């Protein structure tokens, strides 16, 4: 009985940590994709990983700082050989979970010519911190969804976008915009799928 209660509590804790549900069809996309990344790091595993992050390595030290307030990181990224491999309706259904006032869309870029869309959503927390972050980047041959659960300090967000070998992000001018011909996507340093 006790085991059942502990198990149920664990499942509920895990479910509440993720809150936002990844589109169910994403699991099937891995088979179609040329490259795929599937990262699911729940609270205990996240803290477990942070214990081996080095304080000497600048990237790892920054990661350790960012992870301190997090409850979970979920990343699904797919790169396809041809267009139209993923279902836009599933992305729309995922986006529908990110409703105000809990969530606010802080940035979004759309290219009607290239069919590239990228959106950033914040879940606001008390004290000016960010309570969660969702990034949806949908391109004709690529789809990436990032769901970060937990508290992120604005300066950590700047670290996240500005470090790890990439320039700093300034969300001071939060605006949603749409343009016909955005610049080409920067070259990616795509990692291999972890075993």
């Amino acid at each position, binding site marked *: 009985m006790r085991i059942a209660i502990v198990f149920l509590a664990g499942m509920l804790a895990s479910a509440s940590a993720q809150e936002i549900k990844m589109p169910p069809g994403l699991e099937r996309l891995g088979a179609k994709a040329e490259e795929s*990344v599937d*990262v699911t*790091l729940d609270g205990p*595993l*996240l803290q*477990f*990983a*942070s*214990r*081996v*992050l080095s304080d000497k390595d600048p*990237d*790892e030290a920054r*990661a350790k700082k*960012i*992870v301190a307030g997090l409850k979970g*990181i979920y*990343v699904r*990224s797919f790169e396809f050989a041809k267009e139209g491999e993923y279902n836009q309706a599933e992305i729309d259904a995922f986006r529908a979970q990110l409703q105000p006032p809990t969530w606010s869309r802080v*940035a*979004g*870029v759309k290219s009607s010519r290239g069919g590239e869309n*990228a*959106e*950033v959503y914040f879940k606001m927390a008390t004290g000016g911190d960010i309570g969660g*972050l969702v*990034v949806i*980047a949908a391109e004709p041959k690529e789809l*990436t969804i*990032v769901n*970060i659960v937990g508290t992120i300090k604005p300066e950590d*967000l700047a670290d*996240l*976008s*500005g*470090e*790890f*070998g*990439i*320039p700093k*992000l*300034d969300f001071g*001018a939060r*605006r949603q*915009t749409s*343009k016909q011909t*955005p*610049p080409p*996507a*920067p070259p*990616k*340093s795509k*990692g291999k799928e*972890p*075993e």
Partner: protein
Amino acid sequence: MNRLEDALRGALRREEPPAGFAGRVLAAAQGRDQQRAVSRWWFFRQSPRLRWAAAFAAVVLLAGGGIEYRHQQRAKAERAKDQLMLALRITGSKLRLVQERIRWIEEAPMER
């Protein structure tokens, strides 16, 4: 035939055990068990080297098990760390993508 039957009947007839037989059998069995238990540990008691060897083997087994457990935990944590760093890099690259496009849109009218 009758004689054979009589002989068999006589041989197989039930006889009551003498008084105290059951008690003696139980006492003998208990004594044998104790003797066996004593002889099992006698060798260890008499041989300090064997005692030390057994203790050493136990320590080696425990230490080996502990090291292997730590090694496995470390490997698991390293895999989780790699996943974490990958997740943060992907997140950072997508945030940068949005940032660059917003910057491009903001700067584009001024350049024209």
